């Protein structure tokens, strides 16, 4: 890294850490129903909303009611979005006259946005109307994020409360998250993004004639959209001449802000945050990375405040930061080492393929680890074009279960499930029935934690096995071989872990990925969510065990180290064989010079 990149990276983390405490304590106040700076304005709004919806905000729910409310709400939203996509051609704000989605794509997209995945098997500016983008997708960006946070808060209450079955009111948590946290920050962020040149309009797309016409080789696709290949397996191409370009327009800024803030990641444009209208400057780039990490980072502090020991939160943040920074370091190293085969050609050793010069190597690497460590999935870099080891990093961050900051809410609750597993084993090792935050870890907590941390991984293992035996799934690869395996593994991992970013190089709009992907996203979101709420219910009913000298402190370095090891070992043991056949063999092949 050059000195500018050092400065940029260190400055970035400094700003992030400075924001953790103020935002974290603000969120704690919001969830504990205390007065905040925004209360004078928002309390009346809140009350009106509750009155309209018939919600009694003082009535708390047990875990079952909380879960049913969450699931029901998500189901309704899913049906609404599915219908909207199927009826897109009939709805307003569609200047480009986009047709309706196919049912498979609509299903995949609706599930994708409800589950906070934002996997996009369509290209935003080529398929979705302004109405779909704003009323459908952007709204889901808020709601799916708020759902994740509500679940995380319910789990924290499970730790905090004693001898009760009540976990709070889902509707109130959902409303407060949206009104007090997501909307204000998104508003500020959108304004800042507009200042950097992100567009916000409802204009029709603009056709701009080119000063000099140009031609390029376009891959030929068959009727299903898969690339055609000749007998040797090389993709067939045809030459195309271009005289004018169409510049897409749209209400981008408003969607861009929540896309990152809610760790959603669904781009307005297909190029996502690499598109100059989504992410025009190095500053907007840093701002977007900040938005991605902001809430997941600050939630650890909220957690600390609510459980009455902020060191517990800092410990979790420390583990996350450690893995994030280490990943960033490896990625940055791999990309600056580049491909020795390319270096031999004398075109420089740094791998800039698939990266934007305006972000630079560090700005691209940091975005890549932030977006995959969280379940965001926005991209400013082609992950497919990273070096094999470079590509291994985002893939591994997803496979770890989206806990390195993780999705808003979901990152924290998945991390807490890991902490419970870590506490269990370490508790045994010191000769005590394990306890975490004063609550005993027993059979039920073990079952639920295991469901939380293993559902996505198990889904990926099963589906990637099926994919390799399914001709349609294999045919979608643009680069057959070890790299193709990485592409499929990444796509399935991304959906099962609700990340939503694409490695690219894979035609995902085929039935296999649309349908199995929908299944993966649904399982990856709701199985852990229900398990977390069930666990919150059982934790809340337990009595509190005060810590003594015999209790393992979970807010100190030894436990943080142990937690890090548990996370890395679980991830490595689950995916080592698959990774060996994908990125690892690819890297060895590259170094072998063939």
């Amino acid at each position: 890294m050059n000195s500018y990149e050092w400065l940029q990276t260190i400055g970035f983390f400094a700003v992030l850490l400075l924001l953790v405490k103020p935002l974290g304590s603000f969120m704690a106040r919001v969830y504990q129903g205390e007065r905040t700076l925004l209360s004078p304005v928002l309390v009346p709004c809140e009350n009106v909303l509750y009155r309209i919806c018939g919600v009694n905000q003082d009535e708390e729910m047990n875990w079952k009611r909380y879960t049913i409310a969450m699931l029901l709400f998500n189901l309704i939203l899913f049906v609404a979005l599915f219908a909207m996509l199927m009826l897109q051609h009939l709805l307003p704000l569609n200047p480009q006259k986009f047709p309706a989605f196919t049912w498979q794509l609509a299903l995949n997209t609706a599930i994708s946005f409800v589950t906070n995945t934002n996997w996009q098997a369509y290209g935003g500016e080529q398929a979705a109307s302004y109405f779909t983008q704003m009323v459908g997708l952007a709204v889901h960006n808020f709601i799916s994020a708020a759902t994740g946070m509500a679940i995380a808060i319910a789990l924290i209450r499970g730790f905090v409360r004693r001898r009760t079955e009540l976990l709070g009111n889902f509707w109130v948590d959902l409303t407060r998250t949206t009104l007090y946290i997501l909307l204000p920050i998104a508003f500020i962020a959108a304004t800042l993004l507009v200042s950097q040149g992100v567009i916000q309009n409802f204009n029709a797309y603009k056709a701009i004639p080119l000063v000099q016409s140009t031609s390029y080789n376009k891959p030929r696709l068959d009727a299903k959209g898969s690339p055609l290949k000749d007998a040797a397996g090389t993709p067939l191409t045809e030459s195309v001449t271009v005289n004018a370009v169409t510049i897409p327009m749209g209400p981008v800024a408003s969607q861009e802000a929540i896309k990152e803030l809610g760790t959603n990641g669904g781009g307005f444009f297909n190029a996502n945050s690499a598109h100059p209208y989504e992410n025009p400057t190095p500053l907007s780039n840093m701002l977007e990375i900040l938005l991605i990490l902001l809430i997941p980072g600050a939630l650890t502090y909220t957690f600390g405040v609510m459980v009455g020991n902020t060191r517990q939160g800092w410990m979790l943040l420390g583990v996350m930061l450690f893995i994030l920074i280490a990943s960033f370091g490896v990625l940055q190293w791999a990309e600056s080492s580049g491909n020795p085969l390319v270096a031999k050609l004398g075109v420089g050793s740094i791998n800039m393929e698939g990266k934007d010069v305006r972000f630079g190597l560090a700005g691209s690497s940091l975005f890549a680890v932030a977006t995959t460590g969280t379940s965001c999935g926005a991209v400013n870099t082609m992950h497919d074009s990273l070096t094999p080891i470079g590509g291994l990093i985002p893939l591994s961050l997803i496979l770890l279960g989206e806990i390195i900051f993780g999705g808003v809410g979901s990152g924290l609750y998945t991390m807490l499930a890991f902490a419970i597993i870590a506490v269990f084993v370490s508790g045994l090792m010191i000769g005590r029935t394990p306890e975490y935050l004063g609550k005993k870890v027993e059979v039920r907590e073990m079952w639920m934690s295991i469901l939380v941390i293993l559902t996505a991984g198990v889904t990926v293992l099963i589906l990637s096995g099926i994919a390799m035996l399914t001709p349609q799934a294999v045919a979608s690869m643009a680069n057959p071989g070890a790299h193709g395996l990485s592409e499929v593994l990444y796509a399935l991992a991304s959906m099962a872990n609700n990340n939503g970013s694409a490695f690219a190089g894979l035609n995902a709009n085929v039935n296999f990925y649309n349908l199995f992907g929908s299944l993966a996203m649904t399982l990856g979101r709701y199985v852990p969510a229900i398990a977390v709420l069930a666990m919150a219910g059982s934790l809340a009913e337990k009595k509190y065990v005060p810590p003594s000298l015999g209790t393992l402190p979970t807010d100190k370095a030894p436990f943080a180290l142990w937690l890090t090891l548990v996370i890395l070992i679980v991830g490595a043991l689950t995916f080592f064989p698959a990774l060996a056949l994908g990125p690892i063999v690819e890297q060895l092949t590259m170094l072998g010079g063939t």
Partner: protein
Amino acid sequence: MSKHIPPPQSAFDKHLLKSALLESIKKLDPRTLWRNPVMFCVEIASCITLVTFFMSLTGANKEPAWFTGTVTAWLWLTVIFSTFAEALAEGRGKARAASLRKSRTDVTAKLVTKPEFKSAFTTVGASQLRMGDLILVEGGEMIAGDGDVVAGAALVNESAVTGESAPVIRESGGDRSAVTGGTTVISGSIIVKITANPGETFLDRMIGLIEGAKRRKTPNEIALEVLLIALTLVFMLVCANISPLSIYSVKMAGHGTPVSLTVLVALFVCLAPTTIAALLPAIGIAGMDRLFQKNVIALSGRAIEAAGDVNVLLLDKTGTITHGNRQAVSFVPVGGHSEQELAEAALMASLADETPEGRSVVILAKEKHGLTRETPFGAEVVEFSADTRLSGINLEGTHYRKGASDSTVAFVKTLGGKSIPSDLENVVDKIARGGATPLVVCRDSQILGAINLKDIVKAGIQERFLQLRSMGIRTVMITGDNPLTAAAIAAEAQVDDFLAQAKPEEKLRLIREYQEQGFMVAMTGDGTNDAPALAQADVAVAMNTGTQPAREAANIIDLDSNPTKLLDIVEVGKQILMTRGNLTTFSISNDIAKYFAIIPAALLSIYPQLGVLNVMQLASPFSAILSAVIFNAIIIPLLVPLALKGTRFRPMPAERLLIHNLLIYGVGGIIAPFVGIKAIDMVIGMVV
């Protein structure tokens, strides 16, 4: 304390090994093995490789038969090692149970209708006795069942149950009324009301527990098993996943062979947490057995594990913290009398006093003042009575008395004594404030001074409490003494807290209070009035000398009736959990090396580049896979001694303990298989 249990056998006693070996083959029955789900999966895996072995014999499988055959053999050995470990742990208990059963020879009982000795009886077999029946037991007869003495008193030899050869008194009423079936009345007659149906008696329960027949998995064990099952499932999927991935890779690379079923199954067994799963049952059984060696019977495994979690110990002062008898430590004269004068009078007043306190006065007078006297002929002995609350003798018209301060003063006044020494009150107060008991001595109407009777705190008890404190366990002393005395002794013994003038309901309240605050409370007790508190406590240790209600309310019974045992029980409880945790960590850490052995070997034909991952430089793919399988199997018998003895427990703060164990079992668990697999590979290289 004598041992009734057969002399402690080494785990590797020849006879035990032989019967364990036989038992371990019997345990391969899938109908019993499924209780250990991980090993059950390994058994299925062994069956699969057995099939691939036959297929390679017939040529249907291209892998060499020596390879599939050896893998199969070692997979079966893995299962057998695990059943062997369990059988070995059970075997030790069974040997003890057999010796107990001998004492349960067929006994007859004299059934009576009324609790009267004169009434007629009918003779019935012990197996016909039911709860509520009354039986008459006379000298030389064996008591046919558990019960309470409702009439009479007898000297009972309980060595069959407790190992204590000195007979004990059992009598109706009070705290010594419980009798145990299988024990023998030496002299005296008693009428016993039977309190347990045949098959449910104390002895039956003990035998069942020791044999492990009644052993239920503890909640903690189940929670760990959940984790192990989940890991097993994941590894099953990981291995299943390799198959299609390798088929695809072969297609793309254009050469090589997909990973075979034998290799996948071998990889699965190596990755599955077999080490801990194989030893898990043995750890629990061995823990109970270790307690039994200390003459403690836990009525459930849960109770022992709860003991490991205890953070408040309620200890009876008497017998646990102090020796239980107050002893005279000094004479304090008053009113200008000399110490010698006081010692002489005190000696006279104590000559006929057979209580331990009285004896200690005689001993002090001898040791400190060189005084020795026999009870003079013609002396009139005045025994302690509830009325006067004084004792002493009258000799040649002189009254020697000792007693509590107010009683003695009252006595002196009745004799016409007018002047009570002005410094008496001061002296008495001073002794009492020091946690001791002042006994005031008088000779006729003259008060000479006070004897300082002190409760002696057991040597070394402070260190024990210090250890407990460092483990985060609070000690609370329970005593019937007044707060002043209690405070002084508490300070001397360095307990964290005390409950003075404790009544049964006070104890119950204290336990509830601690539990409300989330503490796990352990207590010991023996009296019937302790029963409610014992029932409330999380870990309740009843003395075997205690009453039936106390024994029923408890979940642990101490055959030696030694209250300090609680500390041993806590230790064993912690050891069981630690051994489980350490072996789990070890088992999972092992997987890293196994991956490095098997993955390059399995995929080498597809991608020769992966040879780089063969960091151990294992000779060939076959030998690499075999070495991993063999290591995975033989680590089980190698760790059996650890599972049976338990990880060594050293009291230290949790964090240091974790680091200590992580270094040994975590880091050690990563390194050991690299060394072991490489060594086995070298041996294979020499053989093949």
